[in-house]
């Protein structure tokens, strides 16, 4: 089962009504996915205005391509791919996808039990990651993309995806220090 916030079942009848151009059906689909699309875009680009534009462009593309959706995969996955592509297009425009496949320094293994992490601290730490690193971390951990899929999206190698994930995870760990009862933002 997917952990993605996009994983919402959309009735075929609703899609049919949207294909016929019914405004109310468009509205319902929009309302269902507005927050998942906006959140994904915001997490990847860390910019409210750009996230708003991605939401607009992704939904416009969705409604324009609805006739092309054949239904052989979940609708939400199809829409999520459109949203990811829109976000990646913005990253390419920013010329941010120009990374070497750096391998970060290893760190020592730590505690056996998963610590608790405060969501506000995590929000702050996440925003401090480089854009591409944050995007890879988000696509892998939250949206459930594989390294192979991420490599393909970024037009890079699998080791690029792995190194970005490793780098991001380590940086997040570094920013979230161990305190009593869990991890907290260390600045």
């Amino acid at each position, binding site marked *: 089962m997917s952990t993605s916030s996009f994983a919402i079942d959309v009735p075929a009848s609703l899609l049919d009504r949207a294909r016929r151009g019914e405004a109310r059906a468009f509205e319902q689909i929009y309302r269902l996915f*507005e927050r998942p699309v906006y959140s994904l875009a915001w997490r990847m680009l860390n910019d409210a205005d750009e*996230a708003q534009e991605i939401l607009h462009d992704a939904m416009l593309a969705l409604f324009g391509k609805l006739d092309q959706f054949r239904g052989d995969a979940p609708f939400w996955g199809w829409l999520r791919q459109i949203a990811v592509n829109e976000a990646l297009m913005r990253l390419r425009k920013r010329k941010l996808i120009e990374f070497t496949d750096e391998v970060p320094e290893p760190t020592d293994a730590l505690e056996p039990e998963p610590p608790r992490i405060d969501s506000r601290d995590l929000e702050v730490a996440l925003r401090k990651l480089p854009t591409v690193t944050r995007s890879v971390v988000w696509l892998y951990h939250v949206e459930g993309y594989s390294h192979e899929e991420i490599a393909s999206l970024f037009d890079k190698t699998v080791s690029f995806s792995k190194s970005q994930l490793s780098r991001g995870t380590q940086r997040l760990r570094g920013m979230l220090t161990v305190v009593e009862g869990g991890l907290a933002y260390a600045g």
Partner: protein
Amino acid sequence: MPDEIDRISALGGAADDRALAEALRALPLLTPQRSTLPALLALRQAQARRATGRRPNWMAWAAGVMVIGLGLLVFKAQTGDSGHPTGTDEPDRLQALMQRSLEWETALRRLEQQNMPMDAGTAMASAELEDLISLTDLQLGATENDTQAQSLWERRIRLMSRLAEVRSQPAWDKAFPDQSPTLLSAAYPIN
């Protein structure tokens, strides 16, 4: 290289990674400050018109949208227009409301771009109205009923017209210092 990276990742602490992934997934969804739906629906409408061969007059509309937005503001101030289109059937009425909503969105964006200085009272009133618009958007997302949707769209339009009024008040006061500052606000009861 991939093997080496796998080894490094494993050294990082699997429990930590698991906790981090879980915490990332538990972060709340974010809500856009303003819905882009009215603009999308209007665009779809224009595309549909083009597809059926009817001339959309879209460019003229786009060029004159600021005039329309501000014209509506003045018109509503003078007449107390409640935002109800008349003489249309239900789907057309919904479309008309969405279109009107888009016009207000555009007018508001233009006002924002002017970056007019705002005093604390105006900023607070703007923030409250924006919250109410967001709340209306949430309610619109939850409703399945067309009649209820229409009344929510009407409310959205009233709130946006009020927001435009609040945001343009500083410029109004500057241009007409002797005019009563409550001239516009009296025309917009929000229910």
